[in-house]
């Protein structure tokens, strides 16, 4: 027999009511170590969370890396507004950021380390994108100057109005990963692109092959190029390769 009225704690009701997140979660967002997280690099131990009060209204990349010295697989939960959490696995001992790119449309974002408690599973998080506080991009000239970038470094510049080209480069026999934010957003409001160089195959536009999930293109060579015409737009690039990868750089030039 359905009862009427609102749900009160302790009162049984056979009518289904959606509980509020703050009374529902016991771990997610309950042990926030930084309530005003600006995206700067931050390490969360299991159960700890970070709260970003307002995300950009555009693409933002959340980079997360399991820093455990044990082979403890990690996991984070992302919540924003009233959404259901998104769970992301942070594999152990990769020495490499994983990343999740999204447009949270100015809503808040909470990141919680939900790895098993009392295990050594710290997870480093960082929010990456143009204008994120706590980030210092190198200047990226549009004249073809090569800008070296280590892992987590970024570079930002202004592309000319005409046809331009970005070159992502790693002169070594090891996989390297770059992300780009810029240009007009797509229908889901995103304008971020991820690239691999020294990958096992050429994939993406012009190759006839589908890139791996989350990637725009991959190149088997040391260089991956991206041509665009965004009419004098800001171009932001970050290196999200494994931390031991060297000889990486980005180049922006007009064609």
């Amino acid at each position: 027999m359905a009862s009427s009225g609102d749900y009160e704690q302790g009162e049984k009701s056979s009518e289904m009511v959606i509980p509020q997140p703050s009374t529902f979660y016991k771990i997610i967002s309950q042990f926030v170590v930084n309530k005003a997280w600006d995206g700067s690099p931050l390490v969360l131990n299991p159960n700890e969370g970070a709260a970003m009060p307002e995300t950009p209204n555009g693409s933002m990349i959340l980079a997360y890396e399991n820093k455990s010295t044990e082979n403890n697989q990690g996991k984070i939960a992302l919540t924003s507004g009233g959404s259901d959490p998104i769970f992301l696995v942070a594999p152990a001992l990769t020495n490499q950021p994983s990343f999740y790119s999204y447009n949270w449309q100015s809503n808040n974002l909470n990141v919680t380390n939900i790895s098993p408690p009392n295990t050594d599973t710290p997870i480093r998080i960082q929010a990456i994108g143009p204008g994120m506080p706590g980030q210092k991009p190198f200047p990226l000239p549009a004249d073809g100057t090569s800008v070296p970038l280590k892992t987590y470094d970024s570079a930002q510049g202004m592309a000319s109005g005409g046809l331009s080209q970005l070159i992502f480069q790693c002169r070594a026999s090891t996989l390297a990963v770059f992300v780009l934010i810029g240009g007009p957003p797509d229908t889901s409001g995103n304008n971020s692109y991820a690239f691999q160089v020294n990958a096992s195959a050429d994939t993406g536009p012009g190759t006839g092959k589908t890139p791996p999930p989350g990637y725009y293109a991959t190149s088997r060579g040391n260089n991956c190029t991206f041509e665009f015409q965004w009419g004098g737009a800001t171009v932001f690039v970050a290196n999200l390769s494994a931390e031991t990868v060297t000889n990486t750089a980005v180049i922006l030039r007009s064609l």
Partner: protein
Amino acid sequence: MENAFMPPPTVLQTESAGFTGLKTVLPWSGAPLTLQQFDQAVMNQAPNGSLVFEYLNVTVTTNAGALSLTSAGSPTKYLQAPALIFRPGIFINNWQGNNLNVTNTSTASNTPIYIAAIGPGLPGISPSKLTANAPAVTLPIFAAAQGIAQSNNNILQLQASASTITIFVIVGGPTDATGNNAYVVAVNDSVDGNTGPGTGIPAPEGYYATTTSNGYSFPAPWPGATLFVANLSPATSVQATVRLISL
């Protein structure tokens, strides 16, 4: 007829002057270098064109040798380097401007492998001038000469005065289906004999031709092409020359 087994050639170790054997990763320009087991030569940027890679197992025992070549995201290329042969192995490839790592992955410890690589795009190579229908130009080891073919039909006259095997590299003309246009000719090659075009016998892997005599006439039917000729012999005692004849 010379004995097929010759003492290991005296190799230049210009890259490894001061090499104490403790470093295993060596920056490499392509100049002749001997890699001990597990040593690695790293060329950050290979030319965007044909590069001739030469290798020779210089062990004095019977240890078979092996090399692993990696570049960017390409699959590893494995090369076998048999012991006690005196003709170097040749691998021609266009690494398209990517890095090239060469590692001695031989299974036995006493397996030094001599390596060298040359091509027109290699930094540090300053070819001397090769004028058509002019006197022959001397080519020291790991040096090159370069000139322009003046006629429809041209001949590169390759000559070596010593009695030891001499390896010539020619790069020029149109590229083939693999994107390469490099040719390797061995003269004074008593072990392989006469092989390649016109002999009815296939040349060894990577080679265009071999001959027992000390000269070879290489046809270059590429009017106007720039021709690059280098001496990639693994021995120092060779006097090699090249003459360009435009018919």
